[in-house]
């Protein structure tokens, strides 16, 4: 059961990743790209969590924690940059 479900879940997550990258490339404004980067971070965390669960490598969960932390800090920093406007 799980041998079938894991590749399907990973494939769906990869498709979501691709759609988000399309928005990241297309995004008409800078905040669109920031939102897309935020979602990309969450999707990577989900991917790592599924891999850790299916292979039993518990150390991968630590990597997921680190990526979640970095994603949050990056989003807040980008938001500060957007709010301050482009440098004159």
């Amino acid at each position: 059961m799980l041998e079938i479900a894991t590749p399907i879940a990973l494939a769906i997550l990869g498709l979501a990743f691709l759609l988000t990258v399309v928005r990241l490339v297309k995004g008409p404004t800078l905040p669109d790209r920031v939102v897309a980067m935020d979602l990309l971070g969450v999707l990577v965390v989900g991917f790592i969590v599924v891999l850790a669960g299916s292979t039993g490598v518990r150390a991968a969960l630590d990597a997921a924690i680190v990526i979640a932390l970095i994603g949050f800090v990056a989003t807040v920093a980008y938001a500060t940059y957007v709010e301050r406007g482009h440098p004159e």
Partner: protein
Amino acid sequence: MSEILTAILWLLGSVVALLAALGLLRMPDVFTRMQVSTKASTLGLGCLLAGAVLQLGDLASLIHAGSIGAFIFLTTSVSAHVIARASYRAEVPLWEGTLVDERRATKRGMPGEQSEAEGK
């Protein structure tokens, strides 16, 4: 039994994440895109984490996954709020079908009072 539950949770979580990405691609406006991506990504990640904990099945992975979940749940709302405020301040255009814009009345008037109220 737990394998079936894990499979269902993983498929559900990945489908929710796919819906979030689809909404991010299809929505007309920064603000609508943001609400789709943040809400659905927390629900999807919650399902994926629950499935991984069921599959690994020990206390250490429960603590790890619980801390990831708590962190994402807390920070997604904060970062969505920060991006929304920043993009409104940067005057990103709203969708042309937007009906209510409650900030616009206060934005024109008194900038000093507004920044005081937001400074908390």
